[in-house]
């Protein structure tokens, strides 16, 4: 096995400490989520205070670095985040070399991809990279270029949320997530284009004219890059950034990741601070990480999974475990999942919308079934009233965005473009309905935990909807390639894996074991002609 991320010692897997989804009290998580609903209703999660969170010392352990020094490729942008970290730490690659490699590609190709909305100069990035001292254990991301979505506040770059509503908005502080990345030595290569106010794919502000291209089809404007974290998806897939940050309220991290062959994680609600992110729904918004493989997502999650006094949703959670370790598969007769894991298959998972995807999903399940430590649970029973509780009015969040945007709505409703209804709906949803919807979310969450995750540890799902509404974690990852029916282009296909509260380690372990024997995550698209 050539993958240097596989840890020797198959039998040792049985003696691993259990992942966090086991010992954490489910009753505790449920009661905590009930508080989030009530706090959102009373507006107590609002804050206008600048982010001042400080890292808790070194958070990324040696598991994040490659044990075998990777070869230095001619094009440094072909390195994964973990490989880049390893080579920078060893001195084989300088941060400035990495910065220049990415800026070269951005300058050459972003006119076509349109992944970025705003960028700093090359000189500014090189200056920032030079300020991070070498060898600092607190700066594992030294020289690593990242692409946060344009709804993350940045003190040095415009934050426009893909919309006329925030055109020209310049925050005077960084959001907590950006603060943490920069504190770890990371660099913001630019603010990634996004769907209008975190909905749909990126468009020219105030119009329905698409901008960002899918990295796999740069000549086809109609083939979607996925939304709403479109620019981040394209930046990472086209190697205009090592990795990036998105946000997900309803599939906006897994969508572009699946569409562009990326690996992503949207962790349990509250795991990453939302302070300094333009809000959409106080009860459903999540920060997510978009990268090239399971280990890369684990590294960024490790940096970001910290309590933030400025976001009470992040407080009181169990301490973050070692995600990088979880994303390291064991090597037995073949790579195995770190912990014995029951993988559920959602009842309609194998009934995909096209034959390519259906075939790839069947192959995925078969591959997982061959993985030591995995048991497939094919006959899942869904929670009671699942359809009613997870969709329609009860499963929605119609009222959430309105309160924050009242002043913007008064100024000119035309600035909201095609997203206007989403932001006016809160004025029409009655208080009794809003309360009932919050109750329904708690009821669904309770049933997901007690009636679904009593049958399995993780579950393969067609979409992330119920997991966004309940705050449960998901990962997206590539499972192969299909053919776009309209253009005949070869395009990536992906799958989504969901877990119970704090099940991130379990997700990372399964995806890492899968990626140890498949190569879809290593493929990247050809450059534009």
């Amino acid at each position, binding site marked *: 096995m050539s993958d240097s991320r596989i840890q020797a010692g198959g039998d040792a897997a049985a003696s691993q400490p259990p992942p966090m989804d086991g010992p954490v009290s489910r009753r505790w998580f449920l009661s905590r989520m009930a508080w989030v609903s*009530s706090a959102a209703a009373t507006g107590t999660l609002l804050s206008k205070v600048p982010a001042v969170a400080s890292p808790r010392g070194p958070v990324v352990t040696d598991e994040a670095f490659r044990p075998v020094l990777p070869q230095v490729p001619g094009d440094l942008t072909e390195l994964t985040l973990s490989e880049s970290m390893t080579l920078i730490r060893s001195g084989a690659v300088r941060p400035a070399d990495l910065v220049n490699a990415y800026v070269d590609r951005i300058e050459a190709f972003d006119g076509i991809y349109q992944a970025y909305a705003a960028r700093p100069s090359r000189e500014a990035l090189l200056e920032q990279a030079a300020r991070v001292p070498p060898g600092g254990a607190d700066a594992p991301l030294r020289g690593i270029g990242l692409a946060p979505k344009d709804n993350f506040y940045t003190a040095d770059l415009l934050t426009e949320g893909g919309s006329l509503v925030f055109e020209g908005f310049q925050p005077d502080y960084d959001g907590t997530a950006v603060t943490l990345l920069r504190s770890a030595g990371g660099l913001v290569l630019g603010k990634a284009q996004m769907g209008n106010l975190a909905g749909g794919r990126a468009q020219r502000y105030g119009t329905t004219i698409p901008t960002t291209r899918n990295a796999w089809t740069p000549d086809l404007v109609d083939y979607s890059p996925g939304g709403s974290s479109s620019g981040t998806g394209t930046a990472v897939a086209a190697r205009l950034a090592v990795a990036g940050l998105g946000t997900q309220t309803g599939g906006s991290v897994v969508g572009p990741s699946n569409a562009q062959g990326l690996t992503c994680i949207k962790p349990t609600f509250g795991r990453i601070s939302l302070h300094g992110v333009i809000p959409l729904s106080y009860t459903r918004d999540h920060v997510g990480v978009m990268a090239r493989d399971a280990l890369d997502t684990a590294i960024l999650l490790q940096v970001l999974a910290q309590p933030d006094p400025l976001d*009470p949703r992040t407080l*009181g959670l169990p301490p973050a475990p070692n995600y990088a370790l979880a994303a390291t598969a064991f090597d037995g007769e073949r790579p195995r999942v770190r912990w014995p894991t029951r993988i559920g298959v959602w009842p309609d998972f194998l009934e995909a919308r096209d034959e390519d995807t259906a075939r790839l999903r069947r192959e995925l399940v078969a591959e997982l079934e061959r993985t030591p430590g995995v048991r497939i649970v094919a006959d899942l029973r869904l929670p009671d009233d699942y359809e009613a509780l997870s969709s329609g009015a009860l499963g929605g969040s119609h009222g959430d965005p309105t309160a924050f945007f009242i002043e913007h709505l008064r100024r000119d409703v035309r600035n909201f473009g095609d997203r206007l209804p989403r932001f006016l709906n809160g004025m029409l949803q009655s208080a009794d309905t809003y309360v009932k919807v919050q109750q329904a979310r708690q009821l669904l969450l309770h049933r997901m935990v007690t009636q679904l995750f009593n049958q399995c540890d993780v579950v393969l799902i067609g979409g992330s909807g119920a997991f966004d509404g309940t705050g449960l974690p998901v990962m997206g990852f590539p499972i192969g390639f299909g053919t776009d029916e309209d253009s005949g282009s070869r395009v990536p296909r992906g799958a989504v894996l969901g877990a119970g509260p704090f099940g991130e380690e379990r997700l990372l372990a399964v995806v890492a074991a899968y990626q140890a024997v498949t190569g879809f995550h290593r493929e990247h698209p050809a450059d534009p002609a």
Partner: protein
Amino acid sequence: MQEPKVPPPTDEELDRYIRTRYALLGIDISVLPVSDPDAPMDQERLLRNGRSILREDVEVANFPIDPQLHLPQPFPAPFTAWSDVEDRP
């Protein structure tokens, strides 16, 4: 669940309600074209969406949830979430 005994409002009645609600908060939707499928948004689509949201209230009201269950009340939780340390790993 007992069925409502009054006739449901018409589209026209709901449209008046929606416009009044927006106007009450100082929001002017008359700046949008009345009906233009090529525009990013028009009044016709906006009102159609608003009517569907209002009518969803009925669906929500009709779904039974035990009122003793999972109350989104303020606050059991700062005490639980921020001080219930013995329940954590």
